[in-house]
């Protein structure tokens, strides 16, 4: 499964922002235990008693970002599909999960691939046997590989009727020259078409990235941590290290603004996307941390601009800002869907005027405090099942290798001031780093 990128962005920004406000000394409201094996494999255990269910998330810190070789875009996602093709011990992965009524799936995004199962607590050892086995001993035949490429192409076809998918594809292609963020997670269509011919490469991909040092296991729910820790040692110790880092070229500094208009083959209201080059996730980067709340404060649903364009003038269907949370630098994005083509220039000028305004004016401190409170409650309210807890962690893990960063992240965000935000707006919103794509229907 490929997560809809727009949704991922929204979900992820909510999560991250939400995490931001927990008080120093204990953001994350659960007891955490860790298992560290000699081969570099790490497990994060979060017992939550009472439900009779366990959630089991394996985070591979590899996503479409790691597809650095030409012609291989989309491969991380394709490989995610192949991970369900069985091993010598369990040739039919799906039939095992079916037998135990597990809910098993996976998703891929720019920076990560996540395999997740929810199941009855009594099946934990069976699942660990099954999961550890496919990460160590995956074995699929060439014809299975080729057939699965058809399903991936089907997934591409399913998605491409959505104008946002088209927009993301064109935006990233334009905004990046060297870095692998040039392509989206599903990949370029030409590369997807060529996937059936990439069997040998798929074996290389597995050997490089599906290694213990590059994967982190999260278990939440109804289990005993002591016996589970022993179980992890038993099932994962034989996994041989050997991770090979991808050779990702850094993106050169953008020196001139970029613009493009894209025609969408269908009817849609015009969608405008503006992205200013920003930084990678780094809790110690003061400008970066200060730009995160700006997305909501300047473009969110209680911002002055939202009120003006969505509610009062009713020029746009929606507007949203999205600050990047990625391993490498990515643009700060602003999206809006304009109701009438003749208003596109006006809406863009209003967005730019908002940015210019906050280069000199300070954000209302009451709004900033309100946002911090919102982050706290948003975070706490979401943790309403073992699965919800497990599913809220992969992004932190892929960015930093653990979840301890949640506390640091919160601390840093809580200390952001209106002055910090003004400095950050001046720092990031420069003309030479600007990218704009307008998508129009036909």
């Amino acid at each position, binding site marked *: 499964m490929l997560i809809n990128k727009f949704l991922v962005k929204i979900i992820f920004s909510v999560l991250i922002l939400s995490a931001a406000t927990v008080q120093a000394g204990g953001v994350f409201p659960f007891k955490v235990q860790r298992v560290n094996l000699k081969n570099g494999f790490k497990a994060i255990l979060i017992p939550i008693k009472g439900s009779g269910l366990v959630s089991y998330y394996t985070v591979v810190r590899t996503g479409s970002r790691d597809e650095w070789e030409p012609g291989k875009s989309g491969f991380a996602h394709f490989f995610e599909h192949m991970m369900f093709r069985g091993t010598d011990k369990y040739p039919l992965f799906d039939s095992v999960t079916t037998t135990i009524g597990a*809910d098993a799936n996976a998703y891929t995004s720019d920076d990560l691939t996540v395999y997740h199962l929810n199941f009855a607590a009594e099946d934990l050892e069976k699942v660990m046997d099954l999961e550890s086995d496919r990460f160590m001993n995956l074995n699929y035949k060439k014809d299975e590989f080729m057939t699965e490429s058809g399903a991936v192409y089907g997934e591409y076809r399913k998605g491409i009727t959505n104008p946002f998918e088209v927009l993301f594809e064109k935006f990233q292609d334009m905004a990046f020259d060297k870095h692998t963020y040039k392509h989206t997670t599903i990949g370029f269509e030409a590369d997807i078409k060529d996937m059936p011919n990439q069997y040998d490469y798929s074996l290389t991909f597995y050997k490089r990235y599906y290694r213990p040092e590059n994967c982190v296991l999260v278990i939440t729910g109804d289990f005993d941590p002591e016996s589970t820790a022993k179980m992890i040692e038993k099932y994962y110790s034989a996994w041989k290290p050997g991770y090979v880092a991808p050779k990702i070229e850094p993106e050169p500094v953008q020196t001139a603004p970029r613009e493009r208009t894209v025609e969408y083959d269908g009817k*849609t209201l015009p969608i405008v996307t503006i992205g200013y080059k920003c930084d990678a996730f780094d809790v110690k980067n003061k400008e970066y941390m200060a730009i995160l709340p700006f997305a909501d404060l300047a473009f969110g649903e209680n911002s002055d601009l939202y009120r003006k364009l969505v509610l009062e003038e009713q020029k746009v269907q929606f507007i949203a800002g999205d600050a990047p949370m990625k391993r490498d630098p990515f643009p700060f994005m602003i999206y809006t869907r304009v109701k009438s083509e003749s208003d596109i220039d006006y809406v863009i000028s209003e967005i730019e005027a908002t940015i210019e305004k906050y280069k000199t004016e300070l954000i209302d401190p009451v709004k900033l405090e309100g946002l911090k409170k919102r982050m706290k409650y948003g975070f706490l*309210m979401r943790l309403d099942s073992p*699965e919800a807890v497990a599913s809220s962690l992969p992004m932190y893990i892929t960015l930093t290798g653990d979840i301890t960063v949640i506390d640091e992240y919160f601390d840093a965000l809580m200390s952001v001031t209106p002055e910090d935000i003004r400095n950050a707006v001046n720092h990031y919103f420069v003309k030479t780093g600007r990218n704009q794509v307008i998508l129009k229907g036909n």
Partner: protein
Amino acid sequence: MKKSFLLLSFFVPVIFMTTNLFPVDKDRIVLLKTEEPVIHFKIWFNVGSKDDPKGKEGLAYLTAAMLNEGGTKNLTYSEIIDKLYPFAAGYRASVSKENTVYSGSVHKDNLNEYLEIFLDQLLNPGFREEDFNRLKQEAISFITTTLRYSSDEELGKAVLYNELYKNTPYGHLDAGSVSSLNSITLDDVKEFFITYYNRNNFILAIGGGYDDALIDKVWNTLEKLPDGKINPTKTVEPAAVSGLSVVIVEKKANATAISMGYPISILRSDPEWYPLALANSWLGEHRNSSSHLYQVIREARGLNYGDYSYIEYYPNGGWRSKPPVNVPLTKHLFEIWIRPVPNNAKHFALRAALREFTKLSVEGLKPDDFEITRKFLEKYVLHYAPDTDTRLGYALDDKFFGISAPGHLKKFRDKMGSVTLDEVNSAIKKYFNPENMVIVFITPDAEKLKNALVNNDASPIEYQTPKPNSVLEEDKEIINYKLKIKPENVKIVQVEELFN
């Protein structure tokens, strides 16, 4: 914020009460107490898109939209956003065909301030002209751009539902049509609201870590809604589908979405529903590789991303992985959903799906498949309601269907422990009917497809990748699999003509 809040006692066994804890009519209150720090509200009104007056389809939808984004008499919508913003809380009225559920969740730290707005929205809705015009335009834009053009799969389902339920109160989009939306006035909304959002016409559900005093407080406030009648539920009777009929929505597209089905005369309150659900799970458990249709069309042949079947209405299937709550019907449908296939494989994919469905209907389920699916569902159903909010949703649906304690999901699991193959096969015989279906295609080259369908032309399939002999042998049967489709039962419509 106290850390101890979340040291999860959420999952203590759910206390499920419709008891005499308080003096009000217990039949209209559902409670689900847990120790989580969040409180969930759901207020179910007996009003849905079925109650839209003729020519004003979309009225229930617009009325709900005015609750969602229309503000109150005291506060504008943007003032409400401001007030609720720090709580990360909101509320929403969701319209389905039979019902509208007004719901919201809030952390208990913020309960009082939240509750005041949450209830005031129902008691004193703003109903401002400028909000009405904005929301009406949004509804029209949803039809003319989003539904028609942004997801062919959802479009295919919408066309199927309208076709199956035509000439019944279910036979239109919840959002209405472009012309019916245009004919709705703000006065229509006000009248609709007063008629149906009355104090006798709802069921209240509260879940999470609430204090018992809250129940009276909410109930007593809701008593201030205008007096009115209970809106009765009437069973909808769509015309039976006779033979195979086809709607081809012609549209420029690089892939073809297919949905098909027929109204089915069984509800989850019927004891035969559980055996039938087992058969359906084998044939097409939603978003699960255990689905047999998935195995045949995606797994063995790589034609698309997934293939599923349903014995209940399942809106927004593309956006969810587990069954929806609070979308009950008095007459559900059987549905097969084929996710987009290459245009040159559409006839083949239809044949493959109908052939499998027919085989199941004629031969019944095999003992091994029965046993695997039985075991699967016994545990898999646990994942249908992982949180309090969803469990409340199921409890409300139980009220609609008249399912008593311990409720549908528990009965479902329990039944999987005792169900027999005979029960399953007898339910299959009675309710699975592959000869009488409406089939919807979203695809280019409609006329060409029509000819191929009515002439039963062979639909050879070319794979880009090698396939095992077993698949190729089976393909020979699929390629020429006969479907009885008469020319007069094939309708071609242009996408621009839909929902006008």
